[in-house]
């Protein structure tokens, strides 16, 4: 451990603090005096939880439902994106010409179109065509209540399944491209000598990869990978454009029906922040634990 620099309160801190305070005062002033914003925080709680008379208990309401939807989307996006990224990242370092090209083409394609376009393409061209043809929708409508409930818990209510799949898949494809590059650079960071030593003890190409290279590469990529996971949570907001009721979309709904613009977005901001920040704290702890473990 290098000796830690002692932190002191310096001139730059005073300047920064003054600037930030001034900016805050100005914003509050503008809202209060110039646009005479009428704060009405009291309407927010019922969009978080509402009392269900039928069940005679509190149930999640608009914003909370959006919050859990964002979590579900992120989890599916991360799982699928990691699978895609792992496969494509491995393809990227193969000596086979086509394998390498396929990996490269995928990454370049995704990175060079705006994510919002990707979401639309997926929704209109692939999903609406593909899912219909696979007959998933029909299967769901005839499904029993147990299955329907299960689907609602791990995905979404059956009638929005199309939107959910398009959303999760486009998030996965988008994040997958970045994860591909993370995996590739992780593999390429392993010194050539490791391949050679593995070759010299007779391991097959697959075993060299599986037992020697991949474990080291994956350990190296955990920090950037966890950063990408956190990005996924933020990036998931983009699927609001296809009306998946995730946090941002629900925010827009609440804003439209209450006109409580500031209150709504402050709440939404805090919820996103809570989610990403707690994830980065958890990932940070896990990483440190893994590093000290060996």
């Amino acid at each position, binding site marked *: 451990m290098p000796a830690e620099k002692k932190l002191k309160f310096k001139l730059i801190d005073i300047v920064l603090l003054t600037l930030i305070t001034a900016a805050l005062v100005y914003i509050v002033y503008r809202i209060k005096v110039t646009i005479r914003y009428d704060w009405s925080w009291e309407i927010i709680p019922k969009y978080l939880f509402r009392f269900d008379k039928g069940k005679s208990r509190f149930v999640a309401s608009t914003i909370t439902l959006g919050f859990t939807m964002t979590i579900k989307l992120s989890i599916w996006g991360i799982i699928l994106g990691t699978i895609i990224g792992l496969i494509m990242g491995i393809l990227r370092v193969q000596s086979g010409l086509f394998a390498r090209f396929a990996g490269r083409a995928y990454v370049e394609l995704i990175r060079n179109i705006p994510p919002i376009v990707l979401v639309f393409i997926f929704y209109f061209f692939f999903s609406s065509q593909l899912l219909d043809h696979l007959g998933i929708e029909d299967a769901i409508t005839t499904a029993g209540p147990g299955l329907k409930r299960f689907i609602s818990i791990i995905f979404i209510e059956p009638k929005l399944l199309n939107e959910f799949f398009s959303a999760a898949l486009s998030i996965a494809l988008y994040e997958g491209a970045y994860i591909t590059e993370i995996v590739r650079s992780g593999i390429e960071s392993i010194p050539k*000598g*490791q391949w*050679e*030593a593995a070759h010299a*003890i*007779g391991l*097959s190409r697959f075993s060299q990869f599986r037992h020697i290279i991949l*474990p080291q590469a994956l350990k190296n990529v955990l920090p950037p990978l966890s950063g990408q996971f956190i990005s996924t949570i933020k990036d998931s907001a983009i699927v609001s454009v296809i009306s998946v009721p995730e946090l941002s979309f629900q925010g827009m709904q609440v804003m439209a029906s209450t006109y409580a613009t500031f209150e709504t977005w402050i709440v939404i901001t805090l919820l996103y922040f809570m989610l990403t920040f707690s994830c980065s704290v958890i990932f940070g702890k896990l990483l440190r634990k893994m590093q000290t473990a060996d």
Partner: protein
Amino acid sequence: MHNKTLGETIIAVDSVSKTFDRNVKALQGVSLKVKQKEVVVIIGPSGSGKSTLLRCLNGLEETDSGAIVIDDTPLNEHHRNKLKIRTEVGMVFQNFNLFPHMTVRENIRTGPRFVRKASLEEADRTTEDLLARVGLTDKIESYPRQLSGGQQQRVAIARALAMNPLIMLFDEPTSALDPEMVGEVLEVMKNLAIEGMTMVVVTHEIGFAREVGDRIIFMDEGKIVEENSVENFFANPEKERTKLFLSKILENGGCE
């Protein structure tokens, strides 16, 4: 080792050439025969093709032309042959190249486990025997980074031996080591030679070459310049270039 009987030819290299990047001629028509139990020491200036020759012998590098036959198996396109040769030829590298994510035990048993398909108990037994042989029994659960350079190289030797190879290749096994650790590694190699292992060793350790080597090969510019018995090589070398090289390394105290 001058009082052992050598066996049949086990390595036969016939006019092998290898060119890198179109014009770097690393090997130019190298021919060489090594007998069972023989210890051949290769020396030569930097860039003369010593490593390339070793790497061709276990298929780490493909040759452009010429033939290599190891234990009657030609090293050619056939995947089966390549694999057989890789498992019969062990290699020890200058930089050890231990697997940093594995303990010493796992480093050594990986080959037997995944190539020989040995059971865990069997592989562990081999590992323990080999560690005793290189004098590192107490380090079995250590990670490579917890070991000194000399210890790491001894583990690397044990790892190669775990595949029960017919031939061991050493590419400057002591040149990355601090001087005080050179001895322990050479000692292990010497014992291996005494037990009758066929060895091809690239080294500038003159003492080792004199004591353990059966034959010395001097390479320069991708060719074998001189091939001689140990006594003659140092006492009265045949070629001018050999003399020049020897005078240089002897005045530097045996190291490049």
